[in-house]
């Protein structure tokens, strides 16, 4: 039992090798030879466009969370036995399209209203061509800030607008001023100079 005057307090425990960091080292060490062995492919290759790749990755995330909601829906409206059908569907389909499922029928499906720890919720999904094309929450708790933030998660929406230039006085500037050289020609540099002069 350590006491306030524990004489071993100052002894530093030797660091335990961290598997994750070792893997990181292996990964980064292996890369240069991989690059040599596999020179960049030409335009005709099947390499996906950067934006497309990230788009489908993000889509994958969205589908995972929607599937979670589908499983919940099923559970809320029918027996718990069939909920497992939807939840396990991704594992039984081909590895190329892990999230495709044949268990969904077209239409708008309302989950039964259900009380969770934040209040009364109901979710609805629109299925078209066997895929979830929309999800909403017709009923949701709205009593406190916590619920509001949950609603925001349930129905995320970015606000679109058109870029305009602002020329007001600012104290500091956020931007990708990555080098000392580019700093010299930046608005931030002018701000710093004006302070140095005052």
């Amino acid at each position: 039992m350590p006491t306030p005057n524990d004489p071993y307090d100052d002894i530093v425990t030797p660091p335990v090798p961290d598997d994750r960091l070792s893997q990181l080292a292996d990964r980064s060490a292996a890369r240069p030879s991989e690059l040599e062995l596999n020179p960049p492919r030409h335009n005709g290759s099947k390499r996906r466009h950067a934006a497309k790749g990230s788009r489908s990755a993000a889509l994958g995330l969205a589908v995972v969370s929607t599937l979670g909601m589908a499983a919940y829906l099923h559970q809320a409206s029918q027996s718990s036995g069939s909920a497992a059908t939807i939840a396990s569907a991704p594992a039984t389909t081909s590895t190329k399209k892990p999230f495709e499922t044949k268990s969904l029928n077209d239409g708008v499906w309302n989950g039964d209203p259900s009380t969770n720890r934040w209040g009364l919720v109901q979710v609805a999904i629109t299925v078209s061509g066997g895929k979830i094309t929309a999800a909403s929450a017709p009923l949701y708790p709205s009593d406190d800030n916590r619920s509001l933030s949950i609603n925001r998660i349930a129905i995320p929406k970015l606000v679109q607008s058109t870029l305009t230039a602002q020329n007001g006085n600012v104290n500091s500037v956020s931007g990708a001023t990555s080098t000392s050289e580019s700093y010299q020609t930046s608005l931030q540099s002018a701000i710093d100079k004006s302070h140095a002069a005052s």
Partner: protein
Amino acid sequence: MATGVHHVEDVMGMAVSIHVRDDIDPGVISTVVAWLHHVDATFSTYKMESPVSQFGLGLISADQLSEEVRDVLTLCESLREETSGAFDIGCVPAPNGSTLDPSGLVKGWSIERAAELLEAHGATNFCINAGGDIALRGNAEPDQPWRIGIRHPTEPLASAAVLSLGGRAAIATSATYERGAHIIDPKTGEPTAELASVTIVGEDLTYVDAYATAVFVMGLNGAEWLLETHPELDAFVIGHDGLTWETPGFNRWRSS
């Protein structure tokens, strides 16, 4: 006229502007500057002798790293997993010849630690800007929050938005409007091109900076992902076509 201390330090290959509005001992600035140079010596991928370079080149093993370096690299790995590889410090060639480059996290992390150092020495109103990534506290003037401009992608001396940030705040912008600058998509090894700039607003620059990079790589869907997974953060995204997208909470930061 503003009182306080102003200092610009050229360190980690960029300019770090420190604006303190309190009348603190100027020696505190030296402490912060010494910290930034320590970070540079430890994490720089331009210095072959830095522990991070040595580790990236396989010359030392993970258990030879200091707790500080291990913590930062472990955090980088957590972020890689969380962002499905959009934030990845282990796959793009670094100046030292390895492919381990934690600079994308070290910048935000070290500036957040610098802010904590200033706080520990009694500063309550300050703004640290490291190459456009900002950690701030308190106000710029009594009862007047800091006015922070987000650089317009095509007009370097104009702002795309002006925000009022006070209390504890962090803001970082990921963009490639500078000549020769680029951000690589770890999954393809090619520069990302979908967005012109991504700005994230939150409290801790360590994460704000990393998520700005991750969302920039993921593209517009990344902003939606952030909205779902991190409702405590706000994002402002500018496309090449002059359209902008923002999280519903972003508007509250705009300066009136």
